[in-house]
């Protein structure tokens, strides 16, 4: 019986996006997360331990999440936005306070992710994963030094035409800004012109702009350089050892995803149960093992797979700056949009 109901819920939310119309019933949790970012093993463990049945729905960009929550017809209990979206969700009144500091296990959050600038005092959020955005190079094709932004933006001959970038204006533009030594969220047209020039110069060497199927393109050899997240790069390397994740000396883009509770969540108590569950080192470690990303809970290393704890992708070399992305003003977003349209028109 419960199997039937769960299947129906899954079908309804996946196929029709009708989660909003499903009335809140005891023992349910609607989780809204990035694609390929929820460990099935973790969800199974949570369901067994708490008796709460979980429905997972996914999105492909922070903007999709924002638009969905803005439409008001969401009905999610937990969402997992990237840190720079957290202040926007708070100021737009789309999330509700959880007062994380009063929750069991709060003191296990690692010091540099506790009470961060995007949510001081952790009133609304706790960390999920954190990671970096850089690029992956196939060292079987290119034997030079990969820790250099020229490899992707101004590629040597053997890599020309072998490059793939994300299809997302903010991710492509932030990486260009780090490479050029410019600040994020620039409102200065001259700086954005530099970004556009760099990307236009790169475009002839780009094979595709696509944020899906990264692993497949790298492993099959369809491309030799791909803009990438560190966790995904690790998963790709496990299948093809010649792949290496780059840490250029200018620094890499960094981000932290957070658990938040949207306003109007039908199962608030279950959401809190889930958040406390995720603060258990053993549980967040299951998630890290599945996705290949580091987390913000002290003591989880003990439960992490060998090969993940000391992976090169997860350990930036000493002195490489981690540049955490920011929440951009509407003016900055408009400039980014103009750069993107000019690039792909």
């Amino acid at each position, binding site marked *: 019986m419960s199997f039937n109901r769960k299947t129906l819920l899954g079908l309804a939310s996946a196929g029709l996006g009708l989660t909003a119309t499903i009335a809140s019933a005891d023992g349910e949790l609607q989780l809204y997360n990035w694609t390929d970012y929820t460990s099935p093993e973790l969800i199974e463990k949570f369901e067994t331990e708490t008796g709460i049945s979980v429905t997972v729905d996914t999105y492909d*960009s922070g*903007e*999709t999440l*924002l*638009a969905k929550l*803005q439409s008001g017809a969401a009905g999610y209990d937990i969402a997992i936005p990237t840190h720079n979206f957290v202040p*926007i969700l708070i100021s*737009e009144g789309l999330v509700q306070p959880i007062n994380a500091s009063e929750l069991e296990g709060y003191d296990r959050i690692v010091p540099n992710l506790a009470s961060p600038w995007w949510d001081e005092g952790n009133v609304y959020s706790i960390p999920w994963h954190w990671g970096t955005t850089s690029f992956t190079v196939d060292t079987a094709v290119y034997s030079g030094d990969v820790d250099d932004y020229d490899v992707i933006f101004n590629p040597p001959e053997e890599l020309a035409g072998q490059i793939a970038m994300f*299809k*997302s*204006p*903010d991710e492509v533009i932030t990486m260009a800004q780090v490479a050029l030594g410019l600040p994020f969220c620039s409102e200065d*047209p001259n700086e*954005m*012109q530099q970004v*556009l020039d760099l990307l236009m110069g790169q*475009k002839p060497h*780009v*094979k*595709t*702009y*696509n944020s899906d*199927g990264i692993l497949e393109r790298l492993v*099959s*050899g*369809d491309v030799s350089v791909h803009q990438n997240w560190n966790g995904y790069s690790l998963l790709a390397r496990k299948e093809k050892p010649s792949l290496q994740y780059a840490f250029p000396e200018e620094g890499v883009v960094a981000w932290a995803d957070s658990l938040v509770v949207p306003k109007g969540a039908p199962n608030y108590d279950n959401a809190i149960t889930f958040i406390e569950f995720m603060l258990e080192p053993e549980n967040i470690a299951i998630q890290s093992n599945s996705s290949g990303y580091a987390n913000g809970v002290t003591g989880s290393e003990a439960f992490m797979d060998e090969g993940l704890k000391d992976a090169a992708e997860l350990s930036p070399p000493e002195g490489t700056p981690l540049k955490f992305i920011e929440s951009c003003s*509407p003016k900055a*977003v408009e*400039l*980014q*949009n*103009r*750069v*993107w*349209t*000019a690039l*792909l*028109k």
Partner: protein
Amino acid sequence: MSDLLERLRHYIGVLPATFMIVVFMLAPLTIIFVYSFLTPGDYGGVKFEFSTEAYTQLLFQKNLFDEVEFDTSYLTIAFRSIWVATVAVLGSLALGFPAAYYIAQQPESRRNTLLLLITIPFWTNLLIRTYCWILVLRDTGLINNLLIGLGLTDEPITMLYTEGAIALGLVYTYVPFMVLPIYAALERLDKRLIEASRDLYANRWTTLRHVTLPLASPGIVAGAILVFIPALGAFIAPDLLGGGKKLMLGSLVQLQFSAARDWPFGSALTMVIMSVVLICLLLFAVNQRRNEGGFQH
């Protein structure tokens, strides 16, 4: 009394159709229309302030330095989409007409089997089918591996991420929409007319041109419309097979509702695209009527 009942029954009868038109067409269209005249909200959504900015933006863009200038970016994107949709129509016609003709010539029992085969690709998700083309076309894909294996070429031939790949993907996706209406027209075709044409010493080519094609033209027009409209908004094939290096109308609209956070502009684009499609349909219809008039004389 019975008259009233009769009327009531009549109204109840049209209720589902009215419901469909109002809920699925008029209401969303009204929302899009209203949004296209509002101001974009800071983080997506709209502010309820009247503005025609979304429409002027189509032709006059601020550059990075906030100077307003005549800008052809969006026109370029629009013409690219129209061009790609036209190629899809021509390609589907070239493949679809002979296929439909062949099916219509078969005995009735076999026709149904063949029609079933035409619809089989629809049983699989479009995204998956498009991904399969990636596996076939890419540098390390089936075709290149075969060619290299046979020693016909040393270097892989670049097929994926080209405009040819986009055209192939669109024709592959939409050709059934061309086959089915043409088949319907050809099936109804009076065979005696073809016999008469042959009796009058017309060769096959002349018969095709002067008898079969004109009679099949309603099917061809219907097929062309059914292929053109979805191909105009297509973005799966351009993104996946074309590499997403050039924006199409479909992805441009999608972008406005996501990263660009400009819902009014997305709505305005939608209104303009719909108007263009409507004008095309009207032209088709007028043309059609003129043709039909021609036959009567």
